[in-house]
């Protein structure tokens, strides 16, 4: 990569990885409810499912930033 540890590109990658990771872990107590339902599923389950589906998009973006694809 050649980026220094404190460069903005590296910072952006860390943020991009941290967003879905946070949403799936430490954010869970904040979304622990049934309403509003998401496509019929309880909110908590819908929230987790949406972030599972979004994670590939975040990893794809990181790969683009690192010029792997």
């Amino acid at each position, binding site marked *: *990569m050649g980026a220094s540890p404190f460069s903005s590109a590296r910072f952006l990658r860390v943020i991009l*990885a941290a967003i*879905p*990771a946070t949403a*799936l*872990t*430490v954010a*869970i*107590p904040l979304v*622990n*409810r*049934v309403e509003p*339902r998401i*496509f*019929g*599923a*309880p909110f*908590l*389950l819908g929230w*987790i*499912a949406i*972030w*599972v*589906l979004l*994670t*590939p998009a*975040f*990893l*794809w973006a*990181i*790969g683009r930033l*690192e010029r*792997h*694809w």
Partner: protein
Amino acid sequence: MTRATVALSIVAVVVLGTIGFALFGVRRIKMDPSQYIVGGRSFGTLFLWVLMAGEIYTTFTFLGIAGLSYSQGAPAYYILAYGTAAYIIAYFLTPAIWRVGKEHGLLTGPDFFEVRYGSRALALGVAVLQFLMIVPYVSLQLSGLQILLRIAGYGVYDATVSVCIGFIVLALFVYGAGLRGTAWASVVKDVFVLGAVIFAGIAIPIRFFGSPTAMFDHVLAKHPQMLVLPPGGAFHGTVWYVSTVLLTSLGFFMGPQTFNAVFSARSEDTLRRNAMLLPFYQCFLILMLFAGFASALIVPGLKGTAVDQSFLLVVQHFYPSWVLGLIAAAGALAALIPASALILAGASVITKNVAGDIFGFATDDAARTLLTRVLVVVVAVLALLVWLVAQKTVVEMLLLYYNGITQFFPGVAATFLWRRATALGVGAGIATGLAVAIPLAALNETPWGINPGFIGLIANVGVLALVSLASQRRSVIPGVEPK
């Protein structure tokens, strides 16, 4: 033909057909240790994805998720999250591990510890622990297989003998086909499992409730607390959820079988693409939650380990025998294919890191391949014996797997993140982590609602840091830096 004959015949045909297909896939491959254990480091994105999905999603996925959502409800959601969180870590970690493996021609997880910390003793310790973790994990798959065959036999048939025969056949298959054989078999397994999961999660709710949405309405009406987590430090509450997802996602790629799969990749980018694509497989697990919730409404009242049979009982009661046969066949593959990767990993660790590196035995290519093959059968028989004579011990030994596997993570991560880490520090950290986590888990203690393995992990990191700072620095191999 009776319905049991129909269902069991389908299972037998599918399992044997899968093995035949995989043997056909490897018919022209000449085996040396690198080919046999890590597929010659040649797997592309799709093949690796199939292999990883094949060995990650076990009978636990198939029976356990439905069972956990059946009996507990929302705590089962953690399974969706931890795999996905693990793939985020894998995006960064697995290419770095692969690069070390490529440069040094590594075959096993303990090899990684040896080259990074320059310590054969540490590698031996890791090898022995990983081996001890694998045996009960294989036994667990056998229990899953037995449940499936019993249900497919409509309860009139004790499956123990069939489990033994099936497993010996599997061991002979691995003897011949190695990791590439497991990957080919995973192709068939993934197709069957995905089909079964879609059936369980969509067809069952539609038939009984009209739609998955209506099913959730029923669950809410009957068990209003089931769809959210208990608060805070309560049993299986939010604190447990967060600590468990963190613990299990960090440990996700630490199994000896996953090291083999990582080394089998063709390139670093193969692993990055693989990490990006694996969450899509994770989505299908949502459907197994649906199956568990549906079963809780259709066949309520199961207790103890019987909850793992919940959705299979629904299929058995309400669907024709050929449907049950296909579902049970998918489940049987979900037990056998991961088991094949596990026994191969266990055998390769003993061949390379114990027999070869410690006793200087079977170090040339031909002897090493042969010894690994023989040990595949030995490990399989050992797991089978443990399963047959000591079911209770299996449960206790599994604590070692679930709480222990993550304890390897600090040592692996430190080689990329903190170069002061020493072999002594890593070894002391692993020992401390296990010494803290396993008694807590055995006593069912969860201080403040936190998963005991997570407390062990924190102790592990603390001891690793302190002992490393206090012990003489052993420089890690230069030139393999993380990006």
